């Protein structure tokens, strides 16, 4: 493991694509054996950070060390020590499960891998499908297969890019258990990216909130939540309601507009809501939503927007997956 106890350590990490600053001077330290989350909207730079840390993309500026090796100077040794689980589930669909493992073993230069591969297949309950082409696997099985590939060479760090995107609720819960299990049982450091609040909150010991390529906050989920000494009330109203009327309600400390909705920062939702209903007529309120301290409210507090609305182009990922699968068939 790494000498200083950090599985990942990056300073001033920066990536520029032409004039676009995709990652902007990020400092990151991930203790060995922990699960670390990068939480942010689509297009915030999460995937780019993974690409930089795995040597897949060149670092424009700054330093990074992963599993004890400098990513810029020694990328091949970093790559021998990291595993990767892609957001879009990347396997060779024309090969069987076992052949995918075989190829991974060849690419990682393993000579004695079959015993471990068999145990991984058993752990992920894929043993009886090992000879079938992975193109015939269900989405959950494909994801498991990908994690088995990532674990085959005993990596010190696994990068999981949006591990549960596009999965239904059951598979997502199954994967959460799996990620926690892999971290504990295999002692592997996990860096995952997500734009699901619940996922980051539930899995990660530490979370960095990222927006427009910058870390806007970093800490344990409870530290981050404790930082926001406020609740948020989100409401859609008729046009007669103005910012001035909302700001005048006692307990409302700020009013912002996001799309069709007002976002009110309030001292306590329980105290402010009755006053809000007095100040506005019920027919003026079309929708109301209370955000208690959560990673979502942290994000709202720091950036003034919700994570799922902040992406520059919020994609329909299910549709995206269907297209990918269709193209493969």
């Amino acid at each position: 493991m790494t000498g200083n106890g950090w599985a990942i350590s990056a300073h001033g990490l920066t990536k520029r694509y032409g004039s676009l600053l995709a990652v902007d001077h990020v400092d990151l330290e991930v203790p060995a054996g922990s699960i670390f989350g990068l939480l942010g909207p689509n297009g915030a730079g999460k995937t780019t950070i993974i690409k930089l840390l795995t040597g897949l993309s060149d670092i424009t500026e700054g330093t990074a060390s992963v599993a004890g090796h400098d990513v810029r100077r020694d990328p091949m040794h970093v790559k021998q020590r990291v595993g990767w689980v892609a957001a879009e589930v990347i396997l060779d669909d024309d090969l069987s499960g076992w052949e995918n493992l075989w190829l991974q073993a060849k690419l990682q230069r393993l000579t004695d891998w079959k015993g471990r591969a068999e145990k991984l297949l058993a752990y992920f309950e894929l043993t009886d499908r090992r000879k079938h082409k992975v193109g015939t696997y269900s989405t959950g099985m494909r994801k498991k297969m990908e994690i088995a590939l990532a674990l085959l060479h005993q990596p010190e760090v696994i990068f999981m890019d949006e591990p549960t995107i596009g999965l239904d609720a059951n598979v997502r819960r199954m994967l959460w258990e799996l990620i926690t299990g892999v971290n504990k049982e295999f002692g592997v450091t996990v860096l995952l990216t997500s734009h699901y609040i619940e996922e980051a909150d539930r899995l990660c010991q530490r979370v960095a909130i990222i927006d427009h390529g910058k870390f806007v906050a970093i800490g344990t989920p409870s530290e981050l939540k404790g930082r926001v000494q406020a609740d948020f009330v989100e409401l859609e109203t008729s046009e007669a309601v103005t910012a001035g009327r909302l700001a005048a309600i006692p307990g409302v400390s700020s009013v912002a507009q996001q799309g069709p909705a007002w976002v009110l920062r309030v001292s306590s939702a329980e105290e402010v809501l009755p006053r809000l209903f007095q100040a506005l007529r019920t027919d003026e309120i079309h929708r109301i939503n209370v955000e208690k301290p959560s990673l979502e409210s942290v994000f709202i507090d720091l950036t003034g927007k919700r994570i799922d609305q902040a992406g520059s182009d919020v994609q329909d990922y299910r549709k995206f997956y269907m297209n990918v699968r269709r193209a493969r068939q």
Partner: protein
Amino acid sequence: MSTATETLQLPATLGRASDGYVGQFSQFTGLYVREMLRTFRNPFVIVITIVQPFMWLAFFGGMFSTLPASVLQGLLVGAPPGTSYLSFLLPGVLSTGMMSIGMFGAMSTIQDKRFGFMKRILITPTSKATVYLAKSLGSATRGLVQIPVMLAAAIAFGVTIHGNPLSWAASLLGLVLLGLGFSSLFLAITASSTDWQTPGVVSNFITMPLMFASGAMFPSAIYPPWMKAIADVNPVGFSAELSRSVLTYGQFTGHDLLLLGLLAAFAALMIGIGTALATKYLKVE
């Protein structure tokens, strides 16, 4: 998922080469075998690879089969009297076939980029040069499939195959070198592309002129000077001439050895330039 903890007790160490320079042989063989598995599991690819040169023989050869012997003799300058057009054409079709197979390697590379598999490869200790060389050798190997089929078809059409095992080996080596050279060239040109259409366009652009200006279909002696100038330095022509000498005329001369040397130089040059370009420009996605 399995809950029994003992299933997780995995061997502590895996056989792995020691630190320092990260060798590439294992990755190369893995990627090469993958190319082969993918190719030979796709019956469609095999059928097309085989049928295409066969059609050349049938249609192009058929077109000339009824020409009066005197006309043919005038056309096939330098060929011994009585040479059938099909036996003249066969080495040419074998050679032009090896030229276009590079397109498959380029397409498989673009597929890997588009489906993200290139990321899966390059996130392991595998260099871009290794990926490039495995693809290049993979498509050259694929091209070899058509050779026995072509020979069998030619024999069925009544062509007599001359030569001996040693000269056949030289002819085959020439075809392999030609295939390696062109698949390296195709892959180098398409290294930075992610567009499905690129390999087809590049293939048409390169294949057509080099096929006609090569002496593969007709003796270059009947060409206008500018086409003959191209034919004189065209590797497709080198290979066609070498194989024609062996398979059609049953000879293997010092000139043929020179042709083999030129084909080796062509392959080495293309692989060298291609590896350098791929290292620099091979796109991940």
